[in-house]
Each structure stands twice: as structure tokens, then as C-alpha cells.
């Protein structure tokens, strides 16, 4: 049997101490040890981007890292944006209003890829947005509404009005519900 190692990792501001096998993938650690199942695994070879999380603030593929490599580091998963369906983070809210998701499986990876992007790009161009998400695969949406969601999120976060986006949502932004 492989020797296990103690690790100490901060995830969404909370410190976790666990003993893990060196070969345990960070994605599996988050999902199955910490039960933070919002991070999804689509390919386990670093292409699809569904498992993207923030590692010391930078987006990384959690399927390409071992849990032991996160020892002493700060991670953020989609649950760190908001894990409360009744109170969405502006980036999540923008995806909701712009219909930027269908099956929702790839969505957490997009959100985590985009959080640093929208924070550093208050008014991104379509080209910049498409480049920013070019490492994340979505099989449902055709990306168009994701691009719209990013524009909306950037506007929300920088306090600009988003009226010119011509979003078609009938309701006022949802304050709750869930499925």
C-alpha cells in the first residue's frame, strides 16, 4: 500500500486537514473527500476544463494536480462564489439572466475560469472573452450566451448599466426557487 501523507489545504476560506495517498487527484479530493461536488470532472486529461478551480487565485485544472500539491495553498471552488441558490454571486447571476448554461455540467469550470478574468477586465471585448473561455468545453450552448453572460457579469461587477445587452429574461432576476 502507498504511504499516506498529511496535508493542510484552505478551500473557500476553510482549513481542511486530511491524510491522503500521494496519487489522489485534487479533483477527487475535493469531490469525494471534502464532498465539494460542484467541481465536475469531464475528461481527466486536462482538456475540457470542467474541473477548473482557483489555486492561489489562478485558474487550474484540478484533475491535473495531486491533492498533496495543494498542501499549504488556498483553493476556491464554485461553492466559494456562492453555494446558496437564493443568493447568487454576480457572475452566477449573469449566467442565470443570460441563459449561459443548459445541462450545467461544464458551468462551474467556466465560472472559475472567468472569475479572475471579469475582475481584471471591466469591459471585455467579445474576442477577449472568447479567448478567455477557449480552454473550456461546453457541448450544450454553442457559447454565445456564455459570451453574453460574461459581458453582463463584467458590467455588474464594475457597476455599469447592462441595458444595452438586450437580455430577454422575462422575470426580474430570480431571488430563489431552484429546481
Amino acid at each position, binding site marked *: 500500500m502507498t504511504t499516506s501523507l498529511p496535508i493542510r489545504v484552505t478551500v473557500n476560506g476553510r482549513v481542511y486537514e486530511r491524510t491522503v495517498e500521494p496519487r489522489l487527484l485534487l479533483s477527487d479530493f475535493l469531490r469525494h473527500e471534502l464532498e465539494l461536488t*460542484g467541481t465536475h470532472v469531464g475528461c481527466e486529461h486536462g482538456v475540457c476544463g470542467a474541473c477548473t478551480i482557483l489555486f492561489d487565485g489562478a485558474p487550474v485544472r484540478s484533475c491535473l494536480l495531486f491533492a498533496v500539491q495543494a498542501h499549504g495553498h488556498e483553493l476556491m471552488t464554485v461553492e466559494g462564489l456562492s453555494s446558496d441558490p437564493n443568493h447568487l454571486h454576480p457572475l452566477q447571476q449573469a449566467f442565470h439572466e443570460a441563459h449561459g448554461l443548459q445541462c450545467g455540467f461544464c458551468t462551474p469550470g467556466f465560472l472559475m475560469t472567468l472569475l479572475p478574468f471579469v475582475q481584471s477586465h471591466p469591459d471585455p471585448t467579445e474576442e477577449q472573452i472568447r479567448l478567455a473561455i477557449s480552454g473550456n468545453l461546453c457541448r450544450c450552448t*454553442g457559447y454565445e450566451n456564455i459570451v453574453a453572460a460574461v459581458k453582463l457579469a463584467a458590467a455588474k461587477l464594475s457597476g455599469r448599466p447592462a441595458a444595452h445587452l438586450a437580455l430577454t429574461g422575462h422575470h426580474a432576476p430570480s431571488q430563489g*426557487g431552484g429546481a
Partner: protein
Amino acid sequence: MTTRYFGQPIIRNEDPVLLTGQALFTDDVHLPGMLHVAFKRSDYAHARIRRIDVTAARQRPGVVAVYTAADLGAYWKPGPLLVSPPPVKGAVFNTRTQVPLVRDKVRHVGEPIAMVVAESRYVAEDAVEDILVEYEPLPAVVDLEKALAPDAPLIHEDLDQNLAAHIIQRKGNYEAARAQADHVISRRLYYDHGVAAALENRGVVAQWDAKMRQLTVWDTTQAPVPIRNGLAARLGLSESQVRVIAPFIGGGFGPKIMMMYPEEMLIPWAAMQLGRPVKWIEDRRENFMATTHERDQIHWAEIALTKEGRILGFKDFFLHDSGAYDPYGLTVPLNSQCTLLGLYDVPNYESEFKAVFTNKMYVTPYRGAGRQHGVFVMERMLDIAAKELGIDRTAIRRLNFIPPDRFPYNNEIIYQDFAPLVYDSGNYEPLLDKALELIGYEQFVKEEQPRLRAQGRHVGIGVVTYAEGTGIGPYEGARVQVETTGKVNVATGVGTQGQGHFTSYAQLVAEQLGVDVRQIRLVTGDTAEFHWGTGTFASRGSVVAGNAIHAAAAAVRKKILKMASDELEVAEEDLELVDGKVRVKGVPEAAIDLGTLAAKANPLRGAVKPGTEPGLEATAYFGPERGATASGVHAIILEVDPETAMVTIHKYVVVHDCGKVINPLILDGQIRGGVAQGIGNAFYEKVIYDQNGQLLTASFMDYLIPTAMEVPSIAVAHLETPSPLNPLGTKGAGEAGAIPVGPLFAQAIEDALSEYNLEILEIPLSPNRLFELMQEARARS
């Protein structure tokens, strides 16, 4: 004024849980004591198994069980035939379905040979490496055209050839039509559709509660009710002892409607054997090898026309790749055969196909489900005809459209639902006109293209059309109930994979009951909540389940009005349902809220009138006599770089008619997502097996699905020709976006590279393949 919900672009009820990581997907199910499965899969496409040695695997610490076919005993039996062959005269169909674990001979790479159950997935995968399989390799059948050769190795040795099916369908008399024709064109065409590659792989979790005698299964299936019934039958349980939950599913697109996969037969059985919960989650490599594909057909097509371009007849023979088994019957090739006819009045049609067994993963529907293949053949033949006859490609289509006064239009052949292929309604010229207007056809062809060509740029335009048979039977059902809280519960048997059912179905109920969409809780795909239904496939959710939900909600509305009429002592026609209340029109203070009414409908003491049903609840079913035919036109402007053969899309337009629209926001999303898959199919994605049947494209590094850099912004417009076949007037839309993109690319690329005089008779293309075609064309001229 009552609020309208039907037809509104309402943002989705299901989003908040998905956006916050709180939605339950199958791999999110964690149960105490849960075990994990990994499979030993075949390394060979075709080989006899001499010996399987699992001794070392069984001894590995952490391994709980290792099963081979021999260990399954009486439980070993092939999977069910999901779709029986069509009632076509002279039809040949050889049923050969997949097995849970291979007993004697492997028939495709990735076929499961042994199942390891262990304390962790990591240990299970270690133990898979411990298993030794001794194979006697056999020559593999890979090439469709060689599969039926007399010396071809036999995949199923009890058959005398690798023939899965042979079907001939006819309308009119093609040979007579051909004799009258001014112009006859014949071509060989190749179309390969590839794999669905949903972002979520498949998975199954099963828990057997020995004391409750209850089996619970979480499955990434599009067909939870049939899975429950199939499992109960296999496991010797009553259907009521099995609960199948299709929770949130990360994309379906067809392969998840296939049932039963070997893993679906095995995981619940192992959970019962071991008395512990068992989980198996497919990895991406397994998904490429062992989740169904759609792949290729080769067509030999012939079209007979007048010199003006009117179609007199069409004849087609094709080979369809069935893969190693044929559990899904002939849905895919039948769709190809039927959808080929498109929007056109084809008076004489003769279509014959042979489905062949090959040593590859078996083929079942993937978004479009064979329709692509047929549309490619017809659209390409019309393009060639237009060129040879010197007619504009849009004019030849317009000339042959079925006119609006010819509906219902009978194509006189049998469709995938075994009903005659009769188009219910349609109005095609306005679709074409709208698409030409939105793409700017005249202006592009007359001004822009000559101007850009003069600058040395290779820009082209494409316009293609398609029909889509949608919303087929047999039926779906739903139950609608108003709770005493005033909230509304809706349950239906179909599963959901991202189509927005939690919202669009809620809109149908809201429309009837005057309740806010967010007050409606919808459950799909849980057999404990609703146990009748067939599944989510064939663009049928909004038609079949939608109309069932509408009918159930209308029945509840009727109950509400009747009861409120008694309570408020006013005639039913003087009442209206608004904001969760039933109230007297013009007297808003004379109202009773639905929750109160629901409580009154369920008295705890006292007497009720004979025949009274409790509660404000109704269950209804809907089964259309046949499918509703949607239609559409796609148009594109693209540019080719002749140095690299890369294609850049400058403009993309879809004009679509799927009858009445429930939620345009969701509908446009479905269309755009379909186009993205179509673009992948046309230019980026290809499943490649080598001559030994080894799969060379088993990762996202080798099988390229489009990113945001390849998929453009897509303009979508809708025309509404309601279907007369259902009360809502809806037609299906889930597959439409994906269907005609291949021929659209082919036509526009030929146009962009007009000086090469290309004739593109195959899809998928790729920069490499297009470059080769350009080289070949240059060499010819």
C-alpha cells in the same frame, strides 16, 4: 388581465442549483460503505477469449469482488432489443444485442470482460491491471464495403454474413420516372456523424436495502422508466421494488437513451450480491470506446430531373454501420431513409439499405439520429443538379418545395415510429425567404463576393434546408397537483439533460393555473414520482410530455373552477385564475387562494359526494397518432484560407419552424447548441478506427469538439406553423440545429473555392482533408 406564460422567454428555474454546485449529478451520490467499480475491457476489436485469470486481482488488498461472465451464472443474458424492426414488407433484421460481460469472443475494443469491485476506484483500477486475458486475435471487420464480402470474417458466427438488416421502401415508380427524365445524376456519398461527447460521462450508482427489499439506482439515463422495468425483470423484483432516478444529467444527446448498457445491467446486480452500495463512473476514454457512437453510412444516390430542375424521382442505396450489435433496431438508418426527402415533393422514391455488423462500438442515435446522413445526400444532389442544369441553388430548392396547400403530405413510406411518413403541416418558402434576407444573399452574391474575390479572398455562401420528424409516440404522462401551500407539484417520467424542462413545463402549468412559474416544483426522471413513460429522445419532450402536462394542468384547472364556482357561488365562466388565486372577474376581492381550495378538496372528516376524487390533482397522458414535422433553413457565409485550408465563419443564420414556441430563450439555446455540434461534425470531429479496429480517437486531444473560437454568433429566427396533431401546436426542436450543417459547409466551401471546381461528397471535413481535396482538384484540372 391574466399573465401569459406560454411563449415567454422566462429565465430558468433550474439555474440557481446548477450555478452554485448544489445540483445532484450521478457522481455526486455518496453513500456510506459505497464500493467502486472499474472494468477490464477488451484490447482487441475481434478475438476469441482463451482464458481469463483474475487470481491476482482477487488477492489485491481492498478488492471486494471480481466478476467474469462465468461468475454471473443465470444472470448472464444479452441485453434487450429496444426498438423492434419496422413493419416493412420483406424486412430482414437480425437481432444481436450486447452482453453484460464477454463470455467467449470480443467484438469491439472496449467491450467489458471483467468487473472489479473495490473499496476505492483507485484500487479497482489497480486490480484491473492485475487481470490477465489470453486472446486469440481474429481479423477485424472495419470497412463497411468489405463487411459483406464472401470472405469477410463473421462477427456473429451463427449468421452466414455480417448483415444486420436489409430494408427496401418505395414510393411510386422510380424506374418509370427515370425513363421520363431529362437529366440523371449519380454519386457516391459518405457521411460520418461521430460521437455525442456529452461533458458528463455515464455513471450508475445502486443501493440495495435488504430490509426494505428496495433497490434504488441513480443512472445517467435519458430513459429512467424503461430502465426500472428492465432491471426489475432481470433481477426478479417487482417494478415497485425498483426506483430509478435520473438526476441532473450533464448532457444526453442520444447515447444515454440507449438501454441497457452492460454497466446498467451489472452495477445493480453487484449491489444486491454484495449488500453494499456500488458506484461506477465512466471515464472519458471509456466514453469514447464504450458509449454508443453514430458514425458512418455510404450512399449511392441517383436523382432524376426535368431540365427545369423539377425532381421526378430519387433512388438511393446505402450501407449503414451498425457496429458490433444492434440493440437500438433501425432507428438511425430509417431516419436517414425518411429524412432524405426533406422539404421536397419527390413523387417517386426508391430507397434500400443494408445495415452491417462491424467490429466497432455499436451505433445508436446521436442528436439528429441519422437525419444528417439523409439531408446530406439530398442537399448535395440538389447542389450538383443546380450546377449541371445552370440553375441557382436556392431556385432549385424553391421549385421543388412541397406547396403549403399539399398538407398533410404523404411520403408513402414508414418512419421510425412505424407510422406513415406524413408531414402534418409546413410553409417552406417563407423560411427560405427569411433566411436569404437575414444572410443578405442577393447583396453578398452580387456585390460583396465579387469585391472580396477581387481582393484575392475566398469567401462563399451556403443555403440548405431540412425537415425533421419530431415528437413521435408512443406516449408520455404527467401528474399535476396543487398543494395546500399553494405551490404546484408536477411529475413526469421523461428525464432531463439540460433542455430547460423545469421551466418550459412549468410555463405550461402556469398558463393554466395562473401560478408564478417559480412556485411550480417539477420532478422529472424519478420513477418513485411518476412511473409511466418512455424517455427523452427524438425531439419529443415539448411535444409529447409537454402536451401531457398541458392536459393534466387543464384538468386541474377544471377541478379548480368547478370547486370555486360552488364555494363562491358564481358561474365557472365568471371566474379567472390569477396570482395563485381563483377570483371573480371584475371583483378581485371575491377570491379564494388555490392552497385553501386544495385543503378543502382534501377534507379530513365529514362526508363527500359519491365519486369525489381528493385534492386538486390530475394525471394525463398524451400520445400523438404520428410525429410532427419541423422544418428549417440554415445559411452561412464563410471564408477559406487556401494556404492552411482553415475555415472562418463570418455569418450564420437559422430560420426554423417548430410550430408554437413555449420559451424562445430556451429554444434559441437549443438551436445554437445544435449548430455548434453540427460545426464539430462538419469540420473538426472524426472517430477513427484503424484497420485492426483500434480506436485512435479516444481523448479530447484526438477528437476535437469545437470551442468558443470555432463557434460563431448565430442569428436565429422562427416562423410558426402550428402542428394540428397536438393541442399546443408544438413540434420538436432539440435536434434541428445539428442536422444540416454538413451539406451547408460543403456547399459554401465549394463556393468559396470556386476556381478549384471542388465537388465535396463527404463529411466530416478537416483542414487536412480539405487540403487533400484541393490538391486532388488541382491535379485533375
